């Protein structure tokens, strides 16, 4: 039954994703709290572990308000568009060598196309709310998405040149064969994509569409309850998608670090990496058990023990799968994929709590005058390096090092150029018009 497995995967994703998004929000709040010298959510469940569930329940039973002046049907449909597109993109995302709904020949293009449709949810929602804040937020969002999609797409092209395919699966396999992740070949491409993907998901420091000090909540201003949570889910789902794309294209997808050292059970010292997931889960589980008696309330102790047990089970699954060659790549691949996605998302959070917000014109300037030219240079450079390596037999290190240097040089030049332009612009209206 070839149709059944993808359907099963699809159901798993639709069911698990909201939960995952909820826990990423918790993670975000915890990371934010840590960076800001606070504790973060601590009340609902031990260390706030049940907070996402409480939040979800609250949102579900909240009254959904439809403004009287709103365009009713579009107002109702827009969040659905957003969340549908966000979920559809998962169809081509490989969580592991096995866990992928459809290995499309054009997988990457599919994901890009679908996530570019997500902007309709935002634009239509903002328009249908019939509020200035919403409309303006939607406009900014659309303009931002369209501009940064170009930069992001160009950044991805450098990985495509290296991988020679559009299929997500073969891109990962290409990295396996190349012996190193593409981030080492095209670091500039990766960083351009990192910045562009933050902008594309409307996260700080590019969160102008929902800048609360200027636009209240942007396109979500008039939404509440369930529909608001759909937007929220779409935002986090999109974050996971862009993180998944970056992971697949630049960070080696489901591959373990040092993936070319094959082998399974404790042969060489390098195989310690195969035990790594087990150690991580054991550590988390152990911490949960250690903290459990210190929780103030009986039920929190119980929850803590349950979480500890969950992680112990996961550790056992990880350990057990080491001895089952058929299951090992799938399970461990999924672990590494999710771990890399989380690391990528951590960078998102880190940026968010470190940087102030760009002004809209600065944002556009960064996109059009810095990232896009740089991405073009990068694509050109990677292409040249490929030719040097394949046709002229250069050492990969030399070829890509040269590219990197050239791209960095262009970046520095662009920065000085931009600064000079800014100085000139600042000098011009200073006289007052």
């Amino acid at each position: 039954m070839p149709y059944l497995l993808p359907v099963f995967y699809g159901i798993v994703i639709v069911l698990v994703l909201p939960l995952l998004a909820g826990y990423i929000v918790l993670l975000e709040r915890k990371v934010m709290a840590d960076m800001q010298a606070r504790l973060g959510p601590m009340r609902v469940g031990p260390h706030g572990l049940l907070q996402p569930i409480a939040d979800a329940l609250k949102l579900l039973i909240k009254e959904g308000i439809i403004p009287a002046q709103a365009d009713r049907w579009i107002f109702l449909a827009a969040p659905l568009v957003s969340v549908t597109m966000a979920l559809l993109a998962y169809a081509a995302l490989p969580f592991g060598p096995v866990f992928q709904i459809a290995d499309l020949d054009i997988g990457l293009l599919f994901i890009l196309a679908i996530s570019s449709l997500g902007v309709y949810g935002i634009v239509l929602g903002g328009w249908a709310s019939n509020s200035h804040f919403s409309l303006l937020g939607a406009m900014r969002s659309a303009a931002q998405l369209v501009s940064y999609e170009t930069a992001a797409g160009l950044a991805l092209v450098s990985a495509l040149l290296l991988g020679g395919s559009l299929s997500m699966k073969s891109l990962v396999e290409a990295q396996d064969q190349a012996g190193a992740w593409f981030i080492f070949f095209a670091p500039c491409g990766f960083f351009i994509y990192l910045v562009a993907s933050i902008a594309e998901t409307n996260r700080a420091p590019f969160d102008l569409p929902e800048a609360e000090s200027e636009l209240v909540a942007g396109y979500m201003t008039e939404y509440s309850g369930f529909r608001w949570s759909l937007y929220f889910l779409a935002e986090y789902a999109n974050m996971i998608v862009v993180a998944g794309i970056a992971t697949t294209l630049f960070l080696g997808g489901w591959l373990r670090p040092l993936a070319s050292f094959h082998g399974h059970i404790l042969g060489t010292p390098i195989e310690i990496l195969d035990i790594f997931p087990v150690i991580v889960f054991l550590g988390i589980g152990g911490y949960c058990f250690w903290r459990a008696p210190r929780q103030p309330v009986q039920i929190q102790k119980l929850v803590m023990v349950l979480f500890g047990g969950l992680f112990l089970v996961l550790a056992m699954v990880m350990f057990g799968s080491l001895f089952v060659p058929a299951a090992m790549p799938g399970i461990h691949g999924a672990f590494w994929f999710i771990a890399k996605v989380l690391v990528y998302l951590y960078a998102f959070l880190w940026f968010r709590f470190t940087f102030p917000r760009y002004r809209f014109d600065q944002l556009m300037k960064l996109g059009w005058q810095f990232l896009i030219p740089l991405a073009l240079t990068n694509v050109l450079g990677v292409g040249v390096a490929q030719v040097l390596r394949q046709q002229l037999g250069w050492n990969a290190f030399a070829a890509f090092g040269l590219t990197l240097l050239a791209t960095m040089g262009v970046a520095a030049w662009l920065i000085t150029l931009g600064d000079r332009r800014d100085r000139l612009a600042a000098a011009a209206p200073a006289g007052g018009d």
Partner: protein
Amino acid sequence: MTDTHIERVPGVSSTVLGADEIILNMGPQHPSTHGVLRVKLKLDGERVVESECIIGYLHRGVEKIAEHRSYQQFAPYVDRMDYVAAVSNGLGYCEAVEKLLGAEAPIRARVVRTILTELQRIASHLVWLGTHALDIGALTPVFYCFREREEILKIFEKYCGARLTTHAFRIGGLQYETYDGFEEEVKRFCVDFEHKIDEYSTLLTENRIWVGRTKGVGILSAEDAIALGVSGPVLRASGVAWDIRKAMPYAAYDLYKFEIPTAPSGDTYDRYIVRMEEMRQSRLICLQAIENIPAGPIMARIGKVLKPPPGEVYHSIEAPKGELGYYIVSDGSTQPYRVRVRPPSFINLQAFDRMARGSLVADVVAIIGTIDIVLGEVDR
């Protein structure tokens, strides 16, 4: 009084669309107007052509209240003006009444006043820094700032029992002796605080986005600043090295060495730099003062009932936001005949129009933040 927020999308000149100037209303309920300030902006596209501040939403008639209270009774009211820097308000009022009486607080009282006022200046600047950064989208500094401010408020609380509206000083000196361990706590705070300022600095000072958002925004030239009566850090950031603590020393400022930080260009970034440096200087003043608090009485002999001889006095101090002046007229009775407060926020806010003209709408938020207003003081 709706909060309609109209704006054009950049890149589209409004003339193309046939629309001329747009009136944009911010506040009085808006997350980044720092209270109940309402700003009416006239826009040409994204540029501000003209602006008008509409104030008075928090007017309580403090000056009228003063005429119906005795001198001592009015003292707690001044804390409610600039509630972010209540200690400074109290200092100005107490010293003004002392001047009116012809009395002077004992040296010990003056030194303790200096320490507490400088701590208050740090606390006030911390609130400014946190909220200003938050307006520009930096989420984290506000928590760091409030963490340190909490330490200062704890010192206040231990000293006089209140954190925000402290009423720390009395006319003629101090009500309370310093508590045990006061010196050590202030010293520990000041020593630690050096690294904390560096911490804020790392987050912002050389951050490209921060510099991009603040440099060249809301420029106020020195001539304009003087003509518009601007004082405090805003004036100093325009290059005028004028600080009442140096120019006309009060309390115990003549005993300590400190610098007046200035900056050349009078933009938002310079005001940021000046205030950061001021915190460092305040810390140094505290450290000098705490080394040697003279022994002696803490209250001058002025009697229980205050009946200043008829006449008038103007006394001003360098509050965190600028020149805070009290003009008190006495008719010889126990109640002031007239109390006029010269509020720094009110006067500095008047310069907003000059700073905002020609800037982008998104900069308005930054400019409001950089003036450092407290609406309680603007509206009184």
